């Protein structure tokens, strides 16, 4: 007696390697996954935005804030050094001594910030 598999094989009328409806269902699943992923990211972004507040939005989040502050301090230090040197160039001896001291402070600030940035970059 023929098995039900043999009977089934005999009753095959048409055989296709692909099924368009199944492909559509699988691609719909992938689309939904991407949509859900997008929603999750949007939610995370929204929560992060809420957590940051006004100052956070300006200086960055927990990860980026130290680096951003260091870059700002480096820029300030450089401005102070350059400004003090210009000021020292045109003044008398007392002014030169005063602006020289400010240039040193600016240099200390800029180099401290630069060391911090270099240390972060190496990590």
């Amino acid at each position: 007696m023929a098995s039900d598999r043999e009977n089934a094989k005999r009753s095959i009328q048409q055989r296709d390697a692909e099924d368009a409806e199944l492909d559509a269902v699988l691609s719909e699943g992938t689309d939904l996954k991407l949509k859900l992923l997008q929603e999750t990211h949007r939610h995370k972004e929204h929560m992060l935005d809420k957590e940051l507040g006004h100052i956070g939005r300006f200086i960055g989040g927990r990860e980026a804030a130290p680096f951003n502050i260091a870059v700002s301090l480096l820029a300030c230090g450089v401005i102070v050094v350059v400004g003090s040197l210009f000021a020292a160039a045109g003044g008398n001896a007392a002014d030169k001594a005063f602006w020289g001291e400010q240039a040193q402070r600016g240099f200390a600030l800029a180099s401290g910030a630069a060391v911090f940035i270099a240390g972060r970059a190496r990590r």
Partner: protein
Amino acid sequence: MRKDNSLLVDQLAKPNYRRAEHEAARLLKEFSIESPPINPVAIARDMGLNVYFVKLTGPSNGISGFYDGDEDCIFVNKEEFPLRQTWTVAHELGHKILHEEWAKSADYKVLMRNSTEEKDFREKESDAFAANLLMPRFMMDQYWDTISVEELSRLFAVSVPAVKNRLSFLYGV
């Protein structure tokens, strides 16, 4: 008489669900599948099996699908809902992996669409394999309590009853 005895043994044998789960997890790992929907047709083809979508006539039209050892392929009824076709392919793939010798023998039974027959241990193991392959626990954990059953069905490309069974088994809901 001998056939009757083997039928009785089949009915009394306990399904090894752990093995079914392990084999499904192994496949997912082997093919680096980490998110839904899982395409069992692609997995079967990557394993060297052919999958054909067939039009059946007569009483065979009530068949969901079957594995054929001669051609080493899975036949799926074209008229079945696509969300059930994924289950059929995964189920037959389970037979190929878990019970290849039996699946090639004359004792093998084709998968009927609306069967009310008591399933033997191999059918139960293949069902467990299909559930673990198409809706693995680690993927279900990410979505089960955040989206509806209908969305889970669309996301995992399986039928709503299959999702409900899986939710009930995994989370008791």
